[in-house]
């Protein structure tokens, strides 16, 4: 169920005056069950890369293997449906894709397309509507009566309801309130723990450091680094050089280091930072006594 890219190139509008290189010679492998972040500034090819995960774009050159299925320049649209069932794509502002009369029907749209029975689709939809934090009485409402945040949840439920093995998220929390953001990320993390692969595109380094365990950094269509967030954010020079932000935790860690705190490795989540600081303080306290 891994994802593998081998020398993938993608060219937009080949042979026209608008020809541009979207991706250039991308190779990497993502293991099953990992939480991968894709970072890079605007126009670096993140969204182009994401659309390759379920064959919305076919590579101009090179080969992709998604959960055992190959995709290349000549893959037919028929075989893509099987791939799309395995890969769930949540686009930026997914609330724009709602169209059915009721929330329930909208969430059932995906499962029904992928051959679930009416009964099963409904069960799945009900389950995921609850899981994303919507109450049961919303199911029969029109999605257009809901608030922006609620619509976002419906849209995300609509993708997760067919339980894809690989879930790709493009800035899923953009525009949500802090509480809602945290809630959504907990759902995604939970989904990963259940054995699925989660891929997150984000500008927010705090989210990446908190949740991801693997990271791809893109720049002008090139993959410039594939490493753990730990490794990437430890090299502060490199992060700065490539115009990436730094997560708040690593910034705080450095400030603490200046003040004499010792860290064996850079803590990236708030929890690990807190426990490490607490440990240090305890040690100090012990020594003082």
């Amino acid at each position, binding site marked *: 169920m891994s994802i593998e890219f081998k020398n993938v190139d993608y060219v937009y509008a080949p042979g026209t005056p608008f020809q541009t290189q979207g991706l250039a010679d991308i190779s990497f492998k993502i293991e099953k069950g990992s939480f991968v972040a894709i970072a890079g500034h605007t126009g670096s090819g993140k969204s182009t890369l994401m659309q390759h995960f379920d064959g919305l774009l076919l590579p101009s050159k090179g080969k992709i293997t998604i959960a055992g299925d190959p995709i290349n320049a000549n893959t037919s649209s028929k075989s893509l449906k099987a791939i*799309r069932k395995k890969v769930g*794509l949540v*686009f930026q502002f997914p609330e724009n894709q*709602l169209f059915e009369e009721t929330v329930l029907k909208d969430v059932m*749209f*995906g499962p029904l397309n992928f051959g679930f029975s009416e009964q099963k689709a409904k069960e799945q939809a009900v389950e995921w509507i609850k899981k994303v934090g919507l109450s049961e009485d919303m199911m029969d409402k029109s999605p257009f009566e809901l608030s922006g945040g609620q619509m976002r949840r419906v849209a995300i439920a609509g993708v997760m309801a067919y339980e894809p093995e690989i879930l790709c998220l493009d800035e899923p929390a953009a525009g949500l309130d802090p509480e809602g953001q945290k809630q959504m990320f907990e759902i995604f993390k939970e989904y990963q723990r259940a054995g699925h692969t989660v891929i997150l595109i984000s500008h927010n380094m705090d989210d990446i450091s908190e949740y991801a365990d693997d990271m791809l950094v893109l720049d002008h269509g090139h993959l410039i680094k594939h490493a753990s967030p730990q490794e990437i954010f430890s090299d502060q020079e490199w992060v700065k050089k490539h115009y990436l932000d730094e997560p708040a935790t690593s910034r705080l860690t450095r400030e603490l280091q200046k003040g004499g705190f010792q860290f064996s490795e850079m803590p990236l989540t708030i929890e690990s930072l807190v426990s490490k600081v607490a440990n240090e303080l305890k040690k100090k306290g012990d020594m003082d006594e």
Partner: protein
Amino acid sequence: MSKIIIGRYIPGNSIVYKMDPRGKIIATFLFIVIIFLANNWVSYFFLSIFTLLAVWATKLKPKVFWDGVKPLIWLILFTSVLQLFFTTGGKVYWHWGVFNISEYGIQNSIFIFIRFVMIILTSTVLTLTTTSLEIADGMEWILKPLGYLKVPVAQIALVMSIALRFVPTLLDQTVRIMNAQRARGADFNSGGLIKRIHSIIPILIPLFISSLTVAIDLATAMEARGYREGAKRTRYRVLKWSKYDWINLGYFALLTLILLLTRTY
């Protein structure tokens, strides 16, 4: 969608780009009118020269223009072939039932073919070298006399420029929505006619909703920036008539004269 070249603007820097959109629009419209004046080989020869000059003056690659003609090639060939088989008169070369190939038939089908290609080429010259905003400004100026008939020209012009401004945005939005629904398993390219019409709903409804949302937001933003309906407004984009426009219209008048002359003699 990316293959369609009609209505596309390609940035460039030749003389045609420096011309006033008003001149280009008027010339293009009149060209389509006077093309029907042509009725013999000499007049078609001059028409072709004029068109090719216009195409050459854009300094764009010929392939771009070929892309403009390509999607319509079947319509052009179909019409020409109909002309070829169903026109009578002159020497008859071949004959079977209602079909016949005659001297006039051959001539007419060639004329029709040239006429189509000329119209497509000149309108492609206009759209390739003029931004949609320039076209809207030019149209506003051309429509101005209608103001005397109480036609709200300024409003129409505003509607036009907003509409043109949102064509690329809506196209992007359409592609994005299609992709999102495709990712959820929607299939737009298979099944019978009814099924295909049905499959448009997941694209159309979100598109309507987002257009209405954009319209409301834009109206609020315009009002917040001081827009009032019917209030007197100044212009930021000013159209400027250059010497190239006189030359263009001069050539055009010359062509009209030649066509009229070849018609009478």
